[in-house]
């Protein structure tokens, strides 16, 4: 068997961007330092050399402008892919995204569409402190008209980005700083991972762990450790937060009788609450053997100090601890 080709998450994204741009002239990139600099995390490296500054557009530091430019271009026949350098800065694009991109189709009676993607890296773990470490995905989940995607592997990053760009709606595409250098199998030929399909990434019988983004890998590591104790976690990655494919989650909880939702964003008001509510409101309710729990970021801004930063969000140890408690009934 030939060896499977491996790419990093950043390379997988770049390959997807390149293929889309080669196929479709309407696709272009716009953002801060995405040209010769290659993007703050190197995702767009080399693309300006191939496609030129007309299709890889470096902007001034103007996040509202970037979002608006995507919307306007999308409304008039282009397929823009914007980059927000850190997810934190999307706060400056919020009006355009929430009040314009998300709503124009509905307000205009379904006659307009906004086929744009806005990519942005979320998350802590790099020492970037409170204003460069946000995980704000649930803000967008709360907005009708937007789709929200959060890939956790290079394979999904490539396939979901393609699906997002081909989708006729505004898609918020949330990457993670700590994932950019992670490696995994990525086929070269273009492929799609459809939006709105959760994935069971590990099967197990004792506890369903629903994890997003960087937490998927941590949940899998926790599962390895717990397997040695005879505790088997079933790990599910929703991959798309909106629309949310909850069927596999509900099916899984019917099997395991227990559920833990893990994400990096602050627990209160976070995506986990939605997942918990869906489980509690479903037929899985009758199968529950333990309370449904969440493990998420503390209700604090991300601290600079390395140790504090580490403890501000779920880590493998904390997932192991929480999962063990739930399975052993020690809650």
């Amino acid at each position, binding site marked *: 068997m030939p060896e499977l080709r491996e790419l990093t998450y950043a390379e997988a994204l770049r390959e997807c961007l390149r293929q889309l741009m080669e196929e479709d002239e309407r696709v272009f990139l716009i953002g*801060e330092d995405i040209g010769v600099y290659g993007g703050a995390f190197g995702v767009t490296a080399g693309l300006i050399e191939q496609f030129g500054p007309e299709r890889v557009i*470096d902007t001034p*530091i103007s996040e509202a402008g970037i979002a608006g430019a995507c919307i306007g271009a999308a409304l008039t026949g282009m397929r823009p892919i914007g980059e927000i350098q850190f997810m934190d800065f999307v706060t400056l694009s919020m009006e355009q995204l929430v009040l314009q991109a998300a709503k124009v189709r509905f307000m205009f009676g379904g006659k307009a569409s906004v086929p744009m993607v806005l990519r942005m890296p979320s998350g802590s773990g790099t*020492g970037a*402190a409170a204003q460069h470490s946000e995980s704000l995905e649930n803000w967008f989940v709360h907005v009708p008209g937007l789709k929200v995607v959060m890939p956790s592997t290079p394979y999904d990053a490539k396939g979901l980005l393609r699906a997002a760009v081909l989708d006729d709606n505004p898609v918020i595409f949330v990457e993670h700083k700590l994932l950019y250098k992670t490696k995994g199998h990525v086929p070269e030929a273009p492929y799609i991972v459809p939006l709105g399909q959760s994935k069971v990434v590990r099967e197990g019988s004792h506890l369903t762990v629903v994890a997003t983004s960087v937490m998927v890998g941590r949940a899998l590591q926790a599962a390895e450790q717990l397997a040695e104790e005879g505790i088997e976690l079933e790990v599910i990655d929703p991959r798309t937060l909106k629309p949310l494919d909850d069927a596999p989650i509900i099916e899984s909880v019917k099997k395991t009788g227990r559920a833990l939702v893990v994400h990096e964003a602050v627990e209160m008001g976070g995506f986990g609450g939605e997942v918990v509510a869906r489980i509690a409101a479903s037929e899985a309710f009758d199968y529950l053997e333990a309370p449904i729990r969440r493990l998420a970021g503390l209700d*604090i801004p991300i*601290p600079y*100090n*390395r140790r504090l930063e580490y403890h501000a969000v779920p880590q493998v140890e904390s997932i192991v601890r929480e999962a063990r408690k739930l399975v052993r009934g020690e809650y």
Partner: protein
Amino acid sequence: MMQLSQDLIQRHQDLIEALGAETLKAMLQEMHLIRAFEERAEQLYMQGKVHGTMHLSIGQEATAVGAANAMQEGDYLLNHHRGHGHCLAWGSDPNRMMAEFMGKETGYCRGRGGSMHIADIESNNLGANGIVAGGLPIAVGVGLSIKMRRTSQVCLVIFGDGAANEGAFHEALNMASIWRLPIVFLCENNQYAMSMPVQQAFNIENISQRAAAYGLPGVTVDGNDVLAVYAAVSEAAARARRGEGATLVEAKTYRYKGHSKSDKQVYRSREEVRFWQENRDPIMRFSQLLLTAGLISEAEAAQMRERAVAIIDAAVAFSEASPEPDVADIMSGVYA
């Protein structure tokens, strides 16, 4: 260099007399201190003793020192991400700054903020900012408060060329203008916003031209000439203190180092960097000026660098001996 010094001495004759040798020497010493701090910060980063990122202001020391010295006790400072120099010039304690940079409990922000968020509320240094242009609207509020409290304070807000292309810049300048707020908007134009050269980000010659659109005075000065910055900011501050409102001061300078830790600097040439280092270095220029004017001796000039390094050595020692924040205390400090 000699000729340049003569020219500068002539241009700033009155100012040199007014400030006097002691103040001028102190200003040069501050510039050395900033450079020594930044060089050590970079070294500590390379040694893996700090994580995260940092934005070094080597090459921009004249703007920081000129501006801070033009302000008075009780004035406010709003700083930005490339702000170590502004803090030091404002009079912050290098020990507590370094401790913050190293994430220690003894740091200005108890290790919670780091390089990009150093603040010293007690000295009205309202903090650096990780968000480009994040400080400008806040300056409006500070200016408004000064006016409402009827004090004679002034708010100095420092930001980069890149910040002038955020919407917040425009909102802030207009509000400051219509309400005649006591603000000095200092745009530190170091020619680049990360990889974006100002020539590509603006279709105007000087960022200070934008002031006119809001009915404010705008001036552009040589940001590597500490006395030129001092003069422009003094005048702007005096105007603000007289109740005549805000000014936009643009200081043209140059950043020697990469934007942050991971910058390959493919967007500019080594020659360009070298040109600024060799011909326009603010410390070299100011030392030369003071030497030519006979205000310091060669020996004194040499000692300044050593003294700065010694202060930074002590700051690192203080920081290394300082405790880390306690994890048990992680939830504290979010709410008042």
